[in-house]
């Protein structure tokens, strides 16, 4: 088992994607199937961008064992009032600044869900959200 920790700064779009990029390199080194790598990094990247776009600060823990990758993203932020609504394609509260960066279509969470094997999302209003994503690395 391999564990890596990362911090993500809210609002800092220049670094958005650094975590997903590191994880992509690691999975390539581990010779994981390219299609599975793509599913993992797309989900992780969308979740990472969500911290940058919607929260103040986040912490990401990546666990890799010989079967699964588990991605735990915990942020300090406004939280999500209605999780079902947030998971609906097209729903977005993104600011104008976020939209300028090419995000805010309300497609991230549905696409995360599509790409992972397991997803749990817990939210506390004005505290933050905890998103746990799991993908099986072997076919």
């Amino acid at each position, binding site marked *: 088992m391999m564990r890596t920790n990362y911090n993500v700064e809210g609002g800092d*779009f*220049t670094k958005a*994607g650094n975590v997903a*990029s590191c994880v992509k390199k690691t999975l390539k080194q581990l010779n994981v199937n390219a299609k599975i790598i*793509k599913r993992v990094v*797309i989900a992780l990247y*969308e979740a990472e961008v969500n911290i940058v776009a919607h929260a103040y600060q986040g912490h990401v823990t990546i666990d890799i064992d010989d079967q699964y990758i588990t991605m735990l993203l915990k942020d300090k932020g406004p939280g999500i009032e209605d999780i079902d609504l947030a998971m609906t394609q097209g729903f977005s509260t993104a600011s104008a600044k976020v939209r300028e960066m*090419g*995000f805010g279509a309300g*497609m991230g969470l549905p696409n995360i869900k599509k790409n992972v094997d397991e997803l749990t999302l817990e939210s506390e209003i004005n505290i933050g959200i905890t998103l746990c994503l799991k993908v099986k690395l072997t076919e």
Partner: protein
Amino acid sequence: MTIKEIIEVTGAQLICGESNIDNIIEFAFSSDLMSDVLTQDSDQVLLITGLSNLQTIRTAEMADINYILIVRGKAISNDMIRLAEENHISLLQSDLSMFHISGLLYAQDLKPIF
């Protein structure tokens, strides 16, 4: 179509990624929405976009997209070029609009992904 042919047809300028110039591309996708780009799952695709920032390149990296054409002459930063080179991504730039570029390439051999 090869990158070389795309350059000939559109008059676009190659900014980086010269080693890909003879690679064959079958599909293209035009979008300014990065989350939209991240929902498509073909690899050998040209991304035509008016969004020119670091997230454009990051998104291509995550989606395994190796070819990007930035339209409407939007400025391309050195950070974008550095990240594109690091990921073996070819960056093209054109003064034409997204509609114009898409039309020119659609009339050639490039197919939509859906």
